[in-house]
């Protein structure tokens, strides 16, 4: 290249700006929160509290990762909460049934339960994906519909009554177990996050998810197959939600239709959006979403440790959430480009 003809060298500020722009303020806020809490309350870094935080953050992070993927592809998954509940119920019910049929064969019981739970995720994910990709109904409406239907099925199965009868080892040896000083859920979440980060950065699927969310028309004319990948995002999201349902079931020791609800759905979207995923699609990184899940969990934990009145806690949570994102927004505010 003829260096003499470089008209305008790229400006130095671009790289700095893009670093700030891409990672954002969230990790810094997280550090501040952790440091502040550690200074104020020694309980905060007590081993049990840390384990609790990690476990709860892991559960949220797993759902949020799937949600983030769907949002990056330009969609929305409102059904995750209902899937968590359905998977929990179906897992427990299947285990109870298998345990009755083949008492004692723990491996078979657990395998069948987990498979059935994940199967629910696969089923709902496929329905979501099919309706969005093939029937071209907006993701919001489709998942709103499947949210209602899935929750309905979960309640039809249980009538809200918890399901017991899982093998002890599933609860004690898996749900509440620890390995290398970390709870099971944290290991699962770590694996999920690593796989997702890898998929996002290093696989065709991840690349195409960005492309589809960034500009569908351009992706089409570039020869990207759209439908398959959209189905893929909804599938991943539902399966991860089902996984969370199974982990919760193992932890609590019973299958519950109350696990789902709007709460976990809203939280998962919040974690994704606060983690820098753009609701317009095309932008977002899984590792930051995981950090954001951790941030939200620690925030809730901190409010409890600080003995904030539980009726007023939502007020603090709301203000801090808005403030964090507003700060982030101001710090990365960039000039509009033509």
């Amino acid at each position, binding site marked *: 290249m003829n260096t003499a003809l470089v008209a305008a060298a790229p400006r130095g500020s671009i790289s700095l700006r893009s670093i700030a722009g891409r990672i954002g303020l969230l990790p810094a806020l997280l550090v501040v929160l952790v440091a502040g809490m550690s200074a104020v309350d020694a*309980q*905060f870094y*007590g081993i*049990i*509290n840390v384990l*609790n935080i990690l476990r*709860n953050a892991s559960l949220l992070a797993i759902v949020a990762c799937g949600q983030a993927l769907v949002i990056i592809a330009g969609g929305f998954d409102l059904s995750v909460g209902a899937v968590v509940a359905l998977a929990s119920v179906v897992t427990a019910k299947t285990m109870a049934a298998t345990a009755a049929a083949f008492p004692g064969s723990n491996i078979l019981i657990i395998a069948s339960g987990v498979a059935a739970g994940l199967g629910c995720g696969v089923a709902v994910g496929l329905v979501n994906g099919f309706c969005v990709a093939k029937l071209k109904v907006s993701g919001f409406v489709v998942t709103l519909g499947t949210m209602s239907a899935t929750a309905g099925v979960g*309640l039809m199965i249980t*009538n*809200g*009554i*918890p399901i*017991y009868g899982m093998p002890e080892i599933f*609860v004690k040896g898996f749900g*509440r177990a620890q390995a290398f000083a970390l709870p099971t859920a944290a290991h699962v979440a770590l694996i999920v996050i690593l796989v997702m980060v890898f998929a996002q950065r290093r696989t065709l699927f991840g690349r195409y998810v960005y492309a589809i969310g960034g500009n569908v028309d351009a992706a089409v004319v570039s020869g990207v197959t759209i439908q398959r990948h959209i189905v893929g995002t909804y599938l991943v999201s539902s399966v991860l939600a089902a996984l969370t349902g199974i982990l*919760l079931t193992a*932890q*609590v*020791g*019973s299958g*519950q*239709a*109350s*696990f789902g*609800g709007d*709460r*976990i759905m809203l939280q998962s979207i919040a974690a994704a959006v606060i983690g820098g995923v753009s609701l317009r699609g095309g932008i977002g990184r899984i590792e930051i979403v995981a950090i954001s899940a951790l941030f939200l969990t620690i925030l*809730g*934990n901190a409010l*409890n*440790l600080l*003995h904030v009145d*539980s*009726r007023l806690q939502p007020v603090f949570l709301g203000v801090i959430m808005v403030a964090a994102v507003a700060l982030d927004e101001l710090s990365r505010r960039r000039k509009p480009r033509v």
Partner: protein
Amino acid sequence: GTETPWFPMKVYDASSGTPKPADYTPLPKAEKPYRLCVLFPHMKDSFWVAVAYGIVKQADAMNINMNLYEAGGYENLPKQLSQFDDCMASGPDAIIVGAISGAGLSKKFEEAKAKGVPVVGVTNPLPPNALPAANYVDFVAMGEVTGDGLLAQTKPGDKLNIVTFPGPAGSGWAESFNEGFKKAIAKNSNARILAEKFGDSGVAVQLQLIQDALQAYPGMNVIWGTAPTAEAAIGAVAEAGRSDLKIVSSYENQAMLDALNRGDILAFATQYPVGEGAIAIDQAVRLIEKKPVMSLVQPVATVIDKTSAPKLQMDLVLAPASWTPVYSVKAK
């Protein structure tokens, strides 16, 4: 199930304002196959399934038609209002309501009265004299019973450091339970409430609250809260290695009974929800037939612990595990 008949059932007759012990016995049959609507806040736990069980069994026994609607949860007051309207539009002979908010339905009650449709309140408390007939325990009193139950099992001189988990803020019942419990606890100077943690009554939410409370209040030695609270607490407490912690539940469900039998919890309270459902049907029929009716029935709320559990008439507390809820009953 057991063959013990439900009736006569021991209740308080609070029609006059002061509760008097009484025996409740329903009519054997309705004169005609009336059409009844039943409105529930939800059918998402074994508690409301138990009420439904009582309603369905009694409707069968009295040979009337019944349709049951559930609103999907305590956050759905507008939906219950709509269901009330839908019921009214279908022309029922009477309506039975498990109110999401007694105060919130008061206008509907007036409308039904104006149209001459009798309404019976079941299980959830209502403003005084809102309806011609109702049956529910006083939630404050029931909270108090659990407090008394806890104190009764405490050795004199033992310090009680309690965190309460009453249930969802703004639900009304959570606040009432909590108030009654605190009233009872105030009688013992060794008992102290460290904090009140409101939150949705799902196991997952309660679990997080408990985990945090275990950290925030290391001195806590009593967990008092909803049935899901107790259910979540069992695991969390075991995990934290705090076998000294006492767990008390403010109401009943299948899990509480099992936990009590295993010794995982100290006690739970019951208001005999199956009986409530059955009585509500009878009250409604009496109102339709203009027969004398006990206008406010209060089932005797009792606290169940390891010693009283075997004596408990189980089929007034919970529906049999084999029973699946039915949303409508057709008269023969």
